[in-house]
Structures are given as structure tokens and as C-alpha cells.
């Protein structure tokens, strides 16, 4: 595509760019407090969703994001209005990070008319064009060409917006991911591929699914730079994300960030978790929890007191409870909705 070539950006060698990790930038008070509140909001929301699933209020598949909160919260800090976000099925955290209303998200989980998709999408299929969130896609890996297409639209329109395209270590083995990589680099499309490596593709450990387990290297044969990031440290995520987003905005093409992260809960609500030990989960929880890290830092640096943090906790809980309340009592969609929205 000619349009991408009209902006001859300084093109540092992709490999050397990849080999220079972003310098970790310390957060100030406001950033740490905001990160704490946003991550906690996701965690409390997901805990509530898990509870409501257990009560039979949420049906089907429900993939919780608990443990991975630092990834979306850190990445969202790098975006501007007009940038796009797209992801797979473990999408509740992404939606909340994008600024979508927890009531609308929770009501979609319960299949009610006030849900973002009027109750017709469910956990895996929600969208908000207004907040720049393009789904919510249930087929593993399908969002990768789609996100690449959103980035294509940015180039076509001649703006400098960037699309964050999230996928997991499982999706990273899908063929269409590499078809998208090729076109993204060929046409210098502004897309950051954020691989959320939570170590397990459903129940298959990455060492059992991938010949090359360093997923940040998956773009090398396309000359796409990549970097491994501590996805449990929101500061590291933001620092790496800023570098990658700027790389894209400057017209250099795509960038891969492999976020080393972990999910505490099962793949979905019906996961027997036979593939890993309790000890493994417990070790990550106690030693690397993304929220606890920020909490400790806030207290150490005296950005806030215990009481002030408790107040934030209470506010977050209240907001989640309101969402759950709304999602429980909002009516189901009208029967006539069955036949709407098939075509425009």
C-alpha cells in the first residue's frame, strides 16, 4: 500500500529496538492511585461476576481476568482518544479499562436489555465504539487480523491513531496471527500486538504448545520488533507500552509486547484446574500480585494512608455492587429483539 510509504519514518533496526527494553518509569502519586483504583475495579468486578455465575445469573462461558489487571490498566494509560482496543474472549478487564460502564458490562453478562449488546452478545461479545473498544471476539486469534484492519483504517484516513490488539499465548499459535503480522509490517500499520502470556492456553502450558516459548520473538521473521515485559508490574507495562505506541504513531509499523502475566482463576468457570498446582497459583498471588505491588508502594511512599485506601476499596465495591444490582434486576430483552440487528 503506497500510503504507508509516504511517511518515511526513521527506521531503526527492528532487532536492536527489540533488544532495548523500555526503561521503567516510576509512577507519581496520581498515577499509582489511579492504577490501584482501576486494577481493583477490575478485580472486584470479576470476583462479583464469578459469584453471580455461581448463582446462575450469568450463563455460558465466563472467562475471568483476575491476576492480569496490570496489563490492560498499564496499556490504557498510553492511549489517546480515538485509539482502538480489540481483544479475545477474556475481555471484561479491557472493557472496564476502556471506560465502559460496569453496569452495561455486567448486564450483558446476565443477558439483560441494558447490556452493551442488549443481551445478545454475552461475555465474549461486547463492543463500544464510543469508548474505542471493538470487541470482544470469541474465536481464538480472529481479533488479530481485525485489529490489524482497524490499524489499516487509521493509515487510510491519514491519522496517527494506534490499535492495541490483545491476544493470549494460546492465540499466538494461530495461523491468521502470522498472516496479519506479515501485512502489518509490509504496510507499516500502527498496531501494537499485546500478547498476554498467562502461561496456559486453557489447560495447555506454553511449554507443551509452543516450539518457541519467547513469544516476543514471534515477529522476528517479519522484522517486527518485540519485547518481553513484566506484565504484573503496571509501571513496566506502561513504560513498554509507551515505547511501542510511539513506535506505531511515528509510522514505523507494528510492535509486539509479550506481557508475562498470570491468571489466578481457571480458564473459564468450569475449569477443573488439573494442569497446575495450588502452590503455583499461591506463589504468584503472594509474591507478584499486581494490585498488592501498587498498594505496598502507595503505603511506602505515603501516597495514601491505609484509611484512604480503604475508602477507595469501599467506593470500588459500591460501584461493583450497583452494577450487580442493575444487572440482576434489569429486564431481559424484549422477545421482538430476536429478529432485530441481523441486518442494518
Amino acid at each position: 500500500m503506497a500510503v504507508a510509504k509516504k511517511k518515511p519514518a526513521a527506521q531503526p533496526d527492528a532487532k536492536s529496538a527489540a533488544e532495548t527494553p523500555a526503561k521503567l518509569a516510576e509512577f507519581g502519586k496520581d498515577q499509582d492511585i489511579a492504577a490501584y483504583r482501576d486494577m481493583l475495579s477490575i478485580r472486584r468486578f470479576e470476583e462479583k461476576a464469578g459469584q453471580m455465575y455461581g448463582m446462575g445469573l450469568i450463563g455460558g462461558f465466563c472467562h475471568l481476568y483476575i491476576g492480569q489487571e496490570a496489563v490492560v490498566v498499564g496499556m490504557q494509560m498510553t492511549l489517546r482518544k480515538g485509539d482502538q482496543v480489540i481483544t479475545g474472549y477474556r475481555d471484561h478487564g479491557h472493557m472496564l479499562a476502556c471506560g465502559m460502564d460496569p453496569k452495561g458490562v455486567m448486564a450483558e453478562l446476565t443477558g439483560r436489555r441494558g447490556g452493551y449488546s442488549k443481551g445478545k452478545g454475552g461475555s465474549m461479545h461486547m463492543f463500544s465504539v464510543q469508548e474505542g473498544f471493538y470487541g470482544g471476539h470469541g474465536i481464538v486469534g480472529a481479533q488479530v487480523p481485525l485489529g490489524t484492519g482497524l490499524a489499516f483504517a487509521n493509515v487510510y484516513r491519514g491519522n496517527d491513531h494506534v490499535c492495541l490488539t490483545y491476544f493470549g499465548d494460546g492465540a499466538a499459535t494461530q495461523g491468521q496471527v502470522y498472516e496479519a503480522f506479515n501485512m502489518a509490517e509490509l504496510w507499516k500499520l500502527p498496531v501494537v500486538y499485546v500478547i498476554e502470556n498467562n502461561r496456559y492456553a486453557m489447560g495447555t502450558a506454553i511449554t507443551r504448545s509452543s516450539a518457541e516459548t519467547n513469544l516476543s520473538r514471534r515477529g522476528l521473521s517479519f522484522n517486527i520488533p518485540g519485547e518481553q515485559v513484566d506484565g504484573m508490574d503496571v509501571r513496566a507495562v506502561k513504560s513498554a507500552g509507551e515505547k511501542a505506541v510511539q513506535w506505531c504513531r511515528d509510522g514505523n509499523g507494528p510492535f509486539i509486547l509479550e506481557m508475562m502475566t498470570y491468571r489466578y482463576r481457571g480458564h473459564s468457570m468450569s475449569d477443573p484446574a488439573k494442569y497446575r498446582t495450588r502452590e503455583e497459583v499461591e506463589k504468584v498471588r503472594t509474591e507478584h500480585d499486581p494490585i498488592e505491588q501498587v498498594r505496598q508502594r502507595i503505603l511506602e511512599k505515603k501516597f495514601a494512608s491505609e484509611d484512604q485506601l480503604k475508602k477507595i476499596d469501599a467506593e470500588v465495591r459500591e460501584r461493583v455492587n450497583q452494577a450487580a444490582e442493575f444487572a440482576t434486576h434489569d429486564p431481559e430483552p424484549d422477545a421482538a429483539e430476536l429478529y432485530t440487528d441481523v441486518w442494518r
Partner: protein
Amino acid sequence: MRPNSIPTFGAESVIKSMPIEVLMPALSPTMEKGNLAKWLKKEGDKIRSGDVIAEIETDKATMEFESAEEGTLARILVPEGTADVAVNTPIAVILSEGEDKSAIKTAKPAAQSVPSAKAQKPSAPAAPKAAEKSRLQIAPDPGVPDGTEMVTMTMREALRDAMAEEMRRDENVFVMGEEVAEYQGAYKVTQGLLQEFGAKRVIDTPITEHGFAGLGIGAALGGLKPIVEFMTFNFAMQAMDQLVNSAAKTLYMSGGQMGCQIVFRGPNGAAARVGAQHSQDYSAWYSHIPGLKVIAPSTAADAKGLLKAAIRDPNPVIFLENEILYGQSFPVPKLDDYVLPIGKAKVARAGSDVTIIAWSIGMTYALKAADELAKDGISAEVIDLRTLKPMDSDTVITSVQKTGRAVTVEEGWQQNGVGAEIAARIMAQAFDYLDAPVARVSAKDVPMPYAANLEKLALPSVAEVVEAAKSVCYR
């Protein structure tokens, strides 16, 4: 295989000791004739095997023609600039080492001396001339004002014009696919678009159907209006997940919030002699899916009017073309902005005894069968569905209520085919009007064979349509 990637071998002589006749080559699976654009050798030139001796213009591209023979170019039989030279016509004579010109007299000029499968093949797809004639008698669409001037153009040109007009009209419309730009279209449908609109809007993709289908859908989710060309729909099976799960379902899954304005177009179904993996008709596959619209025109006018409508439609549209029809000429109304409604069938030929329902290439069989039936005193009404989804049942039912008999024609397989759907609708909505069970003419339930005779047997035929129509008329 991708079209036109075939090396262009010269026609082989079968009589070694005689002067060698060079025959007009078939340079694509569907080529019937071509223009002899230029001779690159002149009489008396020495020729080695592999030398390019002429440039031949097919309806798709200008191709170099290499000699497979060695010797001296003794005589040029067809001068350069000659148009419409039939495949297998002798175009030159080559003398081998040691022969003299007097031997030329013994060379037979008749093309039929070299048997070829192509020359023997009288099946409907290989007889565009007859089809054209029959087609030219079709009345224009009722929507066309009386007195509108009609211009003759090929299906290929009509499709190109539709895209060009819409690209001029809307900056967000662009076309992408394999070989759409610099190659000028694998089937020449996008010819000239790169020159007019530039590389930003006419985009060659890598061979990556799943990837570029998804990328196109993503661009559409982002508000652009892509036209994605599949070199053939046979390759779109690679992209099926994106077409069904991403393009068709997103509007519904988002509660109407986010849709996908995109056209997927390209040749569908059998061409000629390209075997099982390149000959499948996907009419039934796509028209099964809620959220997709599916269009399959049979004339250039419909192709133009419906492709323009498809590009403007806010939904994902599957636009099934047919390679055999690309080169055929039809009258097209000369109107500034000819847009047809999606979802409206057309009575292509009025009749009273039996309704024949077809679309795309199926119309070729249907119309010729109607001519045959007329000779036997059976008046067939032929309905061109044009759009498969949403399907215009009303036009079909109204006709069947009049005739009491129906035959469906398709190049797809019978089980779960479009004909099965039409038959079910007729049964449900016009049961009391039926004088006979609905008959279906379709491809045979086998992968497409390569051998010319078997391919002909595998496809529907005019004779089968005639027979089916007679059977439902109890004749």
C-alpha cells in the same frame, strides 16, 4: 492454482515430418478466442523452442506466446491486429530443418485436424455466443425508464464500472485482493482501477485469504467500505471463519451498535477444466448464514446495478460472480447511477406452463431450455433470483401459482442446496397450486472431475433442464 500462471506452450504438431502448423493457443481455462495483437517474428526468421513469437490478447490479459517448435517461420497465416481468432485456428507455419517452402502446400489449414478437448466440448459453458443471443432478448429491468439507451458491455466491464463509479462517489470505498492492482486483476475485473485511483485504494494483498479477509473486516469495523476480491471463492474457504463469525455476526452480537459494510466478490463455481478444488459453487454455503446478503447475477446489467447496491449496503455482502460469464456481452442501461434493489428476483422470460428458477450461470441453462421447450409447445417462465439472500420468495410463489410447476437449476450440489430451499418454500406457500413435485437440476454429487466428458456430465445441462421441465409437465 492461480489463473494465467500457466506457461504458454505452443500448440503441438501431430505430424512430425510435415511443415508445422502453429495454432491459436488457449491461454486460460475458459478462453474461446483471442486477438493476435502482434507478431514478434517475421517470415523467414529462425525460431528456437521457447522463443516468444507473438503477443496474444485474451479477454483477461495480453500474453506472450512461445513456440514449442524449432525451424523457420515460413508463413504467417493470420496477420497481427486480427481480432477474435478462434482457439486452434492455424496462425502460422514453421518449417523444420531441411524442408523447403513447397512443403507448405501440403499443410492442411483446417483446425479440426488437431483434435482438442476444447473443440469437442459442446456443453453450455463453452457456447457463449448462443447464450449471448438468447440473453439479448431479455427485457430490461422494469425499473429502467422507457427509451433508455442500452450499451453493450461484458459482465467484466460492468463489474469494473460499478466499482469505479462507487469509488468516485465515496472516498471510503477501496478494493483489495490478490493481483487486483498491478496485474490488473487475475480475471481482469479490476482493470484500470489502479491507474485511476492509485495504490492507496487499489491494494494488492499477499496470498493470505484468512488474513486479508479479517483485515478487510477490521477496516470495515473501523468505518471504511472495503471491496475484497477473492481470486475465486474456492480460496475463500480459507477465510470462512472471518466471513461467518466476524463479518456476519458482529452487528447482531453488538446489539446493532457496530456493523460491517463490506463486499466480498469474485468468481464462484465451475470455470472449465480446473478440477475439483477450483470448481465449487458456494451459493448454498453463504446463503445459509444470517447476517450475510448473497447476490449472484447472470447479466452485466444486473451485475452493475447490484454491485453498486452491494457496495452501498451497510451489511456484509457476498457477491458471487461467474468466470464463464465474465467475457459475455449484454445490454446495459446507460444511466448515470444504475442501482438495483437487493433481494428482488426478475422474470427474465414470461411463460405459463412451468416455472424455471435459476441464477448466475444457471440462467444460461434455463433460458436455452426455455427455447427448447417452446419448440415442443411448452411455455416456460424463467425467474432469475439474482439475490439468494434475502430470497425473493414472492416472485417465485406468484409464478408457481400461475404455472403449477417448478424446476430449479443450480451448479451446486443437490443436498441442502438452494434448490432444496426453493422447493421447500414452494411446498409451504403454494402447495395447493402444485400439479407436480418440484424438480431440481443440479451438479452431480461428486467432486468435479477433470476429464472434459466427465466434467460435462457432472454439471447440469440444458437437456436435463428440458427433461425436468417435461417431467413436471407429465410430458
